[in-house]
């Protein structure tokens, strides 16, 4: 190792040189968008929520801000991961695997856009309901819109990710090998779908809610929820799991001991990203089931998911940056 350290100075690693990022503007835009959602959420009259949890309005706003700050952190981490991957894909522009990495980066950009749009829709819903003659009706309309927008973003995110994984495998002359995993995957998804359907069926606030504090989860008849929300979500998650399998297969079957070592961080990050976003979407869909639980329980779940998800995107960014280091060393 001493020999390496001794001669390391001779090697110029361009990636290690300090330089100004041309992408700083995207971080600024994201910060402004985040400020927009925070200001919207603070403008909402939350006295009923404050009463429900025995909090003053000031305490509630403090909690909202405390929850929004990790939100900014995760937005930035997602953007950092997407830009790092995109920058790497651009650096290897003429290679076979470049397009695969580009699609993975596009999928992360789509996830981020979906999260920002979801935040805005949620806050606009609260504001619109506050000024409406029939708040419950307005909330229901917004819930329907939000659910379908989320489904569309989930389909797009995992679809792009699957395309990326497929292109990466094609770059090493392989195809997604499902032979051994098909039965457990399909069985797992059948169980997940059945549980999901059972939870929705069992959810009293699925179509409508008599409690003005609880917004209906879907605001649509059961059969329409299955057709337009459940099935597309299950399809999106299935694509996400297939993409994950593809990434793992690429990691195992690509050549290069060091390349695989560097790529491992990216795969671990992607595994956490896919599983946690699926879990998050499932929890969001069934939010009214835990609406009656105590506040600390809900906060606990959200905080843990935020922390692990931020870590996942940092791992993806680290992996991509290390791959980029290979490309910039000379």
């Amino acid at each position, binding site marked *: *190792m001493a*020999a*390496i350290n001794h*001669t*390391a100075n*001779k*090697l110029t*690693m361009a990636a290690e040189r300090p330089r100004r990022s041309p992408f700083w503007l995207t971080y600024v835009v994201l910060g402004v968008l985040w400020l927009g959602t925070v200001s919207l959420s603070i403008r909402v009259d939350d006295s009923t929520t404050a009463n429900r949890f025995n909090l003053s309005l000031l305490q509630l706003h403090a909690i909202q801000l405390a929850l929004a700050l990790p939100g900014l952190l995760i937005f930035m981490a997602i953007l950092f991961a997407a830009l790092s991957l995109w920058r790497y894909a651009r650096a*290897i522009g003429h*290679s*076979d*695997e470049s397009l695969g990495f580009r699609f993975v980066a596009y999928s992360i950009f789509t996830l981020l856009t979906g999260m920002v749009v979801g935040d805005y829709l949620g806050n606009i819903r609260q504001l619109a309901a506050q000024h409406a003659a029939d708040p419950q009706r307005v909330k229901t309309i917004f819930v329907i819109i939000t659910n379908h927008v989320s489904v569309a973003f989930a389909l797009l995110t995992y679809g792009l990710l699957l395309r990326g994984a497929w292109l990466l495998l094609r*770059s*090493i002359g392989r195809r997604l090998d499902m032979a051994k995993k098909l039965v457990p995957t399909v069985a797992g998804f059948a169980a997940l779908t059945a549980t999901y359907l059972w939870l929705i069926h069992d959810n009293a606030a699925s179509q409508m809610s008599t409690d003005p504090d609880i917004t209906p989860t879907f605001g649509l008849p059961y059969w329409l929820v299955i057709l337009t929300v459940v099935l597309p979500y299950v399809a999106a998650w299935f694509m996400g799991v297939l993409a994950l399998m593809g990434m793992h297969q690429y990691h195992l079957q*690509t*050549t*290069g*001991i*060091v*390349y*695989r*070592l*560097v790529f491992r961080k990216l795969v671990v990050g992607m595994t956490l990203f896919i599983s946690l976003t699926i879990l998050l979407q499932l929890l969001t869909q069934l939010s009214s089931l835990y609406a009656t639980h105590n506040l600390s329980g809900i906060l606990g779940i959200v905080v843990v998911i935020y922390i692990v998800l931020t870590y996942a995107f940092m791992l993806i960014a680290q992996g991509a940056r*290390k*791959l980029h*280091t*290979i*490309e910039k*060393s*000379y």
Partner: protein
Amino acid sequence: MTMAIDKHYYYQQVVHVTEQFLGPAAERFVRRQIEFRLGKPPETIGWGDIPKLKETICVALGILAKDQTIVDQAMRKFDLIVKE
């Protein structure tokens, strides 16, 4: 013609060894090393260029992998090209 084939041979050997460590990134990496360190077209390298390439490539592998075993393994493979 024979000279051209020989020079191409060494380039291919270096790429082949590096691929075992850097996978899909190997060829791009080797081309940059040759162009920057040796200042010549990649396919024209000869037997005498291998030691210098071995040093720079192994240093880079050490920095990336932080594992001396991998560096030693790469050095042995480059030595084999020189001995051939």
